[in-house]
């Protein structure tokens, strides 16, 4: 164990003791192993991404989750007794994750992914609860939701749950391998992948029969399909490429952008290789989704293609190259990219408009960024260049029109550039906090190193 890990480990142990001392009446003993496991699960569930506001204290909530219905603010998961979950019992906490009901019996909004977390085992939920009990308490009251009536009335969720929510712990499919089942547990449960990567109905519920076929990740980001499709799924990805992508944010086929960069930085980079292999196994055994047949090149027109190509050559080739293949290991390819060929082009527009930054885990620390073009391209140019990359080099996807660009531009500041602040886990302000501020609370840095190796796995 290196020094850093030893420090973290001892810190965990000390906190565990402190936590136990402060909860002398609490029945279950919490071991450092259970805390480490809780931390691992909290990461696998990507709790930090939503429950930490930009520049906010870890797990103190307050991040606005922008949904099609309005803004829902994440709540405070720290053990503060007044504003956090410090008074919540294990049972109450389990109720929130398993049934979507808080300690006072109020219904949660499904922006909190209880429709997925309901699949978690009781032991896993208890470990998560134990770990959250050790993070530094922060006094920060929840912010009221910004939703229209009747959605602003939490009771309305009873109806939603009746229609769309099936409570129930994950049931092992005995006809499948243990690895497949582990993958299913992570993808369909803790990882709540389909919360973004699936189409939703008008009430925001995942269309069950189209799960993981690609969907909105809010704020115009489109999470591509994870089915076996070659064009707009992961059909062309090997298991190893899926693992590499989740571990590092990039592989030879693609690189993370937008919310997925956060997911990699806050969650998947910490998963064990065994768990990542399980996820890959599960995803690769999913069938291809029925795909809309994209228009042929002719639908775009030679003029539009030529305009787009001219813009592409002047602005994009330095990194992505004439042939759209990028530079292996550095700049991601556009040719053959499932994200670029997704039926909905929100991600394409978002990235060209405001730029993006790749994940920068310790294993691939560079954090390459693409600059924003929103200030440079007008809407017509945006349409031309995006239609070009969706049709060049054998790519095929529905054409986009200027209305989509306008819609994204309305919500994304055109001057936005992908500062490193966007990656929450490495919340590098342009001046890092003074050393001692960090030091006072090393345990709480959301970018604390991975748990000791000995505590990984299950």
């Amino acid at each position: 164990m290196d020094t850093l890990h030893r420090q973290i480990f001892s810190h965990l142990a000390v906190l565990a003791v402190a936590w136990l001392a402060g909860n002398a009446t609490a029945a279950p003993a919490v071991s450092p192993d259970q805390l480490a496991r809780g931390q691992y699960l909290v990461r696998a569930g990507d709790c930090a991404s939503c429950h930490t506001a930009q520049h906010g204290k870890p797990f103190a909530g307050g991040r606005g989750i922008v949904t099609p219905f309005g803004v829902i603010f994440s709540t405070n998961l720290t053990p503060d007794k007044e504003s956090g979950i410090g008074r919540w019992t294990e049972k109450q906490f389990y109720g929130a994750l398993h049934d979507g009901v808080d300690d006072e019996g109020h219904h949660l909004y499904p922006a909190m992914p209880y429709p997925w977390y309901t699949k978690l085992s009781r032991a896993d939920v208890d470990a998560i609860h134990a770990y959250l009990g050790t993070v530094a308490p922060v006094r920060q009251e929840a912010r009221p939701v910004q939703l229209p009536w009747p959605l602003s009335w939490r009771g309305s969720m009873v109806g939603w749950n009746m229609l769309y929510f099936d409570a129930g712990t994950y049931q092992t499919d005995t006809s499948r391998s243990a690895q497949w089942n582990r993958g299913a547990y992570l993808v369909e449960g803790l990882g709540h992948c389909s919360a973004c990567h699936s189409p939703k109905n008008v009430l925001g519920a995942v269309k069950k029969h189209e799960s993981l076929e690609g969907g909105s990740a809010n704020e115009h980001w489109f999470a591509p399909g994870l089915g076996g499709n070659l064009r707009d799924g992961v059909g062309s990805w090997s298991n190893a490429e899926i693992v590499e992508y989740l571990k590092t944010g990039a592989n030879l086929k693609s690189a993370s952008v937008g919310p997925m960069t956060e997911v990699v930085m806050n969650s998947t980079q910490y998963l064990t290789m065994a768990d990542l292999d399980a996820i890959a196994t599960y995803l690769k055994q999913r069938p291809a989704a029925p795909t809309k047949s994209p228009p042929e090149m002719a639908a775009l027109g030679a003029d539009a293609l030529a305009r787009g190509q001219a813009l592409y050559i002047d602005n994009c080739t330095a990194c992505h190259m004439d042939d759209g293949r990028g530079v292996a290991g550095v700049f991601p390819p556009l040719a053959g990219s499932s994200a670029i060929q997704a039926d909905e082009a929100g991600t394409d527009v978002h990235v060209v408009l405001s730029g993006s930054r790749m994940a920068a885990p310790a294993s691939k620390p560079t954090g390459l960024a693409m600059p924003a073009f929103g200030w440079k391209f007008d809407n017509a140019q945006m349409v031309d260049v995006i239609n070009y990359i969706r049709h060049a080099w054998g790519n095929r996807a529905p054409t986009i029109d200027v209305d989509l660009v306008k819609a994204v531009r309305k919500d994304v500041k055109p001057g936005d550039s992908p500062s490193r602040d966007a990656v929450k886990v490495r919340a590098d302000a342009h001046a890092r906090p003074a050393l001692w501020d960090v030091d006072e609370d090393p345990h709480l840095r959301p970018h604390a190193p991975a748990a000791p190796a000995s505590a990984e796995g299950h």
Partner: protein
Amino acid sequence: MATKLKPVDIVLVGFGWTASILAEELTRTGLQVLAIERGKYRDTVPDFATTHIQDELRYAVRNGLFQEPARDTLTFRNSMDQTALPMRHLGSFLPAVGVGGAGVHWNGQTWRFLPQDFVIRSHTEQRYGKSFIPPDMTIQDWGVTYAELEPHYDKFDYLCGISGAAGNIQGQIQPGGNPFEGPRQRGYPLPPLKRSYATVLFDKAASEIGFHPFPCPAANTSAAYTNPLGVRMGPCTYCGYCEWFGCGNYSKASPQVTILPVLRQRDNFSWRTHCDVTRINLDSSGKRATGVTYVDEQGRQFEQPADLVICCAFAQHNVLLLLLSKIGKPYDPITNTGVVGRNYAYQITSSVDVFFDKGTILNPFMGAGALGQAIDEFNGDNFDHAPYGFIGGGYIALWTTGGRPILQHHLPQDAPKWGAGWKKAMADNYLSSTSIATHGSVMSYRDAYLDLDPTYRDIYGDPLLRLTFDFHPNEHKMSGFLTDKATLIAEAMKPRSLHPKPRDGHYSIVPYQTTHNTGGCAMGDDPNTSVVNKYLQCWDVPNVFVMGSSVFPQNAGYNPTGTIGALTYWAADAIKNKYLKAPGPLVQV
């Protein structure tokens, strides 16, 4: 009054190449390292993004990335009998401001000095006799040898992903490389850049004469590269916007592109920007630094205690900081005593413009900062100096750094200076002209030095640094010799016409020459002639180290960054493995 901050272990003054290297090396020890930078934080995106960086007017003409003289400058005079005046516009050299320092806006020309360069006095005396060195020339051995620095040169080469062709691997001369270079332990990490047509013509001409041309070592990547820190670089696109610009393509080595991604992940590293360090503080004995004092953007003064202070600012600024902090004895040219400010040197450059017929298309806009072909026959002591009566030399190179419209074009002498005639000359010559450069060494002299100006003061009321410098006959003679050799090659290229531009007369601070300012904190093995010992540690205050070209005792005929990088790794190694284990003087005299 200054607000006293909580102590750190190591404070770095400045946050450019040397500070970045040190921070990466020293944070590995677990110590807390803080860099204090006068400029702003800068990153490839958005600061140097390809969407806007190729803007010659903004960056090259209007000095977008450089120090603002209105905020920080020095005074200048050619000789001690003159009154120095403040440099109110940048000209001869262009110090950077901001994270990454000049490592952001350099060309990427990454040379190693010759083995003899580090022992120039003893080597010269041995080969030519003591009387060969003029009495007022104050050159000295560095106290460190090429052999000692070689592993650290290697480390810097591999950090940056240098593109080049080795000329000497462990004593074996390699075809196509520089046969005069010191032995290197292995080849360059990347093959040479693709050649421009102009460099092909230069190569052919130089070879025909019997010289040994080779591709210049370039911190512009000829292919994708992952450095030993795991940081990835993209291949250079030959956009021609290196010098005076940041690279938007992750292909020119800079702190941002090679080190900062890993440094940002170290929790024992932090930095502060927009902070001017005004003093290194000493305890009552004057023998120990207690930290630094700095002023932030709002004018608030802070005292930052630290166990170790390392000066990583631009060359002259390090000298100023030592003088203001009363570290080391200031140099006095009258009595020839003292050391701080002594042995300032620079670079002497010249060129030969070459014009071909319109049919010879050179496409100069396809360039890279260190895309060039050079010969090294006339550098250092690679040739017998006895017949010529001067010391030093330089490389002769044809660079295709770019073909920017405003400042990177060549016109024949008789071309009109404006109007339709000028436009026609531009149209006729832009694609078919190039230039051969000479890059000459500058020796150090008793009357070339830095001290505190008696009259002019900065925004904090402190004296400005005063630069007293002129070219000496030795340098004019040497540069003229190089210019003649360059002309010889130019003629062999069989152009329509050529135009030699020798460096005549007094040194002028107005026209741009190079940002290769050296000296003032010379290193050496004698405290009477050097500020820092061979490990770049101050003789007088052992917990202060000085990095960068200010430690060069004189300047060689190469760009300095490769040697700065090597010296920094060398010093980092000494700090980690010697100083931190037993803080105190590393060299006893």
